[in-house]
């Protein structure tokens, strides 16, 4: 079981792919209050990802982790980030064993520059299959949803589908 800290973008994508809750069975999942605020803002519009996150937080399947606000604000300012993205990068700086889950261009760029452990939603789905938390059919279905969403380049999803062996 690994420790993952996940941003708004990946929560939304994994919720759409209907594997977010499954991921909490495989890994310790964390967010920050800032990320929660960003996603839960969708509750007003009844977005399914927001309603799901609220439940997972209430059931403590995803936990909120504190972070030093001053450092978060510096990262926000230095890299022109929102509060949520800056907060997970801040946690990544402090807790070296935690893996950052983000599909946000800017978040990934900064994580790469500083050599922070980094994964995206596609890897999360494939790892769920490889760890027998979801079937091959489910993994294909979830990757298909991501493909349809259009967030990722098709060849990456195709590679991931090939890895479902």
């Amino acid at each position: 079981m690994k420790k993952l800290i996940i941003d708004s973008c990946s929560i939304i994508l994994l919720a759409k792919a209907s594997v977010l809750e499954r991921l909490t069975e495989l890994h310790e999942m964390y967010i920050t209050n800032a990320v929660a605020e960003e996603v839960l803002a969708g509750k007003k519009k009844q977005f399914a990802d927001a309603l799901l996150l609220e439940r997972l937080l209430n059931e403590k399947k995803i936990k909120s982790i504190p972070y030093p606000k001053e450092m978060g604000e510096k990262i926000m300012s230095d890299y022109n980030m929102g509060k949520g993205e800056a907060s997970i990068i801040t946690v990544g700086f402090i807790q070296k064993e935690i893996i950052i889950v983000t599909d946000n261009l800017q978040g990934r760029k900064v994580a790469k520059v500083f050599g922070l452990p980094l994964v995206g939603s596609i890897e999360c789905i494939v790892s769920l299959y490889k760890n027998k938390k979801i079937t091959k059919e489910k993994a294909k279905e979830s990757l298909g949803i991501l493909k349809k969403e259009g967030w990722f380049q098709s060849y990456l999803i195709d590679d991931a589908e090939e890895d479902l062996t």
Partner: protein
Amino acid sequence: MSDVEFLGARLEKAIIKMVEKTAEEEHVDKTKALKELILLGRKQFLLNKYLESYRKGICSLDKAAEEVGITVAEMMHEAVKAGIQSTQTREEYRNGLKLLS
């Protein structure tokens, strides 16, 4: 004291016609039609500006959403509509898989 102020502006006839047409279509006066068009235009202006900043790697997606005044989920939808995709590479994907194994 009123919180509205007078603003004088010279507008092309085509723009004035557009305001008049909007007022007629929406059954509102020209002032209200103009205000609506300005607000909508400002939102679209900000959306275009921050989509471009996100595309160029100048700001994060949540920052862009905050500046435009929409949710992150809505901003993601707008980014996809604008043809912006993840730049994740095969190597990054492979490294990510290793991290999770």
